């Protein structure tokens, strides 16, 4: 077939190809349609709209709304990158970003270290193993907001159990949630407490998939416990650890309930992370600053994508496939 005729045939076949594609793939497309639709409407539209709002000066006073019978049209204007320059030129953003990074690194680091230690302790013959395992994952079974309220009960400055115990030891009451530094330590403690069970279980699964012969061989070669840990356990866990670290980094970065319910970002805005601050702009403070909140949201999304990309690249360098 000459090139010209092939081209002709292809163009004549275009509608036919669509029909053929429909005929072969319509089952698949029907099956995924609901998800595509829901994601498109509920995530795609708000995302585009959020991007647009972040380029305007929309707030409570100038968006489209109904008051009684009267419909008031929107009066906000397109302002280009003004919100972004304002946010990036202001110390508030950098302050919140700094604390969010400290919060994320501290939480993920501690959770991982504690999870790894406990998983190693549990991964051996041991009396009462099932009991310990069940006890240690209990915090995971309870909805986070319930746990957070429980911690508020314990942290209560005047009457909370923690301070009463300290008083019993002759130590002055600690302003757990009312002093900036203590509040930061307190929210980290609660988040670590909430996060350890997941780490523990995931890492325990990873440990159990490392063949025991490796340890036996290493022992025969005279490797001590630390060397076995460094050269067998850690490499063996790399797959699981990289997944759980990335997941928990994203979760912690966006951890709304712990901060919001424990301290509302306070005292002042000492414990406010980026996500809770963006929420505060549009749902707590008055007048509600929709444009600013959207711009914060877009910045958060950019930061998270950067984390994911950098993290993946560093994993690739270590020879990790995904």
């Amino acid at each position, binding site marked *: 077939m000459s090139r010209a005729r092939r081209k002709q045939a292809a163009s004549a076949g275009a509608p036919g190809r669509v029909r053929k594609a429909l005929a072969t793939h319509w089952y698949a497309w029907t099956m995924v349609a609901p998800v595509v639709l829901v994601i498109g409407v509920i995530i795609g539209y708000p995302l585009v709209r959020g991007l647009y709002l972040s380029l305007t000066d929309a707030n409570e006073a100038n968006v489209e709304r109904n008051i009684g019978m009267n419909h008031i049209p929107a009066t906000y204007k397109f302002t280009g990158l003004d919100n972004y320059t304002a946010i990036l030129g202001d110390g508030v953003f950098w302050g919140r970003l700094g604390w969010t990074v400290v919060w994320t690194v501290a939480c993920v680091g501690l959770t991982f270290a504690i999870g790894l230690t406990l998983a190693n302790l549990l991964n051996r013959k041991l009396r009462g193993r099932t009991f310990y395992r069940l006890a240690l994952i209990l915090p995971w079974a309870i909805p*986070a907001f319930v746990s957070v309220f429980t911690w508020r009960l314990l942290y209560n400055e005047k009457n909370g159990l923690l301070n009463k115990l300290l008083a019993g030891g002759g130590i002055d009451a600690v302003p757990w949630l009312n002093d900036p530094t203590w509040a930061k330590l307190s929210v980290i403690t609660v988040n670590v407490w909430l996060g350890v069970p997941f780490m523990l279980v995931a890492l325990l699964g990873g440990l159990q998939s490392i063949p025991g012969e490796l340890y036996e061989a290493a022992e025969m070669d005279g490797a001590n416990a630390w060397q076995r840990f460094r050269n067998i356990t850690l490499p063996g866990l790399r797959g699981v650890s990289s997944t759980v670290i990335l997941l928990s980094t994203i979760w912690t970065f966006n951890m709304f309930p712990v901060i919001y319910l424990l301290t509302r970002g306070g005292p002042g805005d000492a414990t406010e992370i980026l996500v809770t601050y963006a929420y505060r702009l549009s*749902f707590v403070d008055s007048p509600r600053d929709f444009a600013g909140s959207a711009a914060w949201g877009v910045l958060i999304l950019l930061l998270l994508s950067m984390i994911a990309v950098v993290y993946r690249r560093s994993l690739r360098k270590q020879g990790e496939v995904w």
Partner: protein
Amino acid sequence: MAKPSRHKRGPLASVGLHATLLVAAVIAVFPPLWLLVTSFKPKNDAFTTGLVSNFTFANYRHVVADTQFLTWFGNSVLVVGVTTVLGVFVAATTGYAVSRFRFPGMRPLMWLLLITQMFPVAVLIVPLYNLMASLGLLNQPAGLVITYLTIAVPFCAWMMKGFFDTIPVEIDEAGRVDGLNPFGTFWRLVLPLARPGLAVTGFYTFVTAWAEVAYASAFMTGEENLTLAGGLQTFVNQYLNDWGSMTAAAVIIAVPAALVFAFAQRHLVAGLTAGTTKG
């Protein structure tokens, strides 16, 4: 000193091991336990350090009879129930399509599912709030259900794909030979085999929706429209410190979640890690 081998531990190592685990276990169990204990104390004893001296159900009675708690509970059950049923179904069909068919648009779809898991509440919540407002879905359970679907379904679809991948394709082929179309094969042959996977995605959706706070606080206002996450906040806020009601309500909220979790926990992690590393 001889190195303690993996099988024979020295007594000192044994004590250290058990001591560490015991301390960790106590820290893990104590807060929920204290919640339970406090809920049985009379209102004014909420902050006593002792165990229960005057055991009472008064807090529970008060919460159930005198507050809107049952309404909130009903709202939550409605929202979470519908979300779970719809979510599992939709995640299953998607997971099946992605597992079995090679179709144009499949790779972008998988990416979409992965990326939506990263979305912070903060980006979407304002536009979503406005969208819900313009559709008249604020304060409506339907609005929350749709929102929760977008949180749960992408992740569940990944998990379901993992489960379907473990079911041999020969079963589908046999169904085809017997004259079933792909929907029939899916519905009659594959879905029953994927029951454990359905259970896990169901549990996951339930637990996620039951514990969601941000959207629930933003979209549902007015006492009678709140879900449990919002309702619990009304007991302890800047104006009110009703710790007795809070603890009793919290216990009632935690129990169903803990029961569901107890059934699912073993599979949750397998699904969780499979969903994120495969593909």
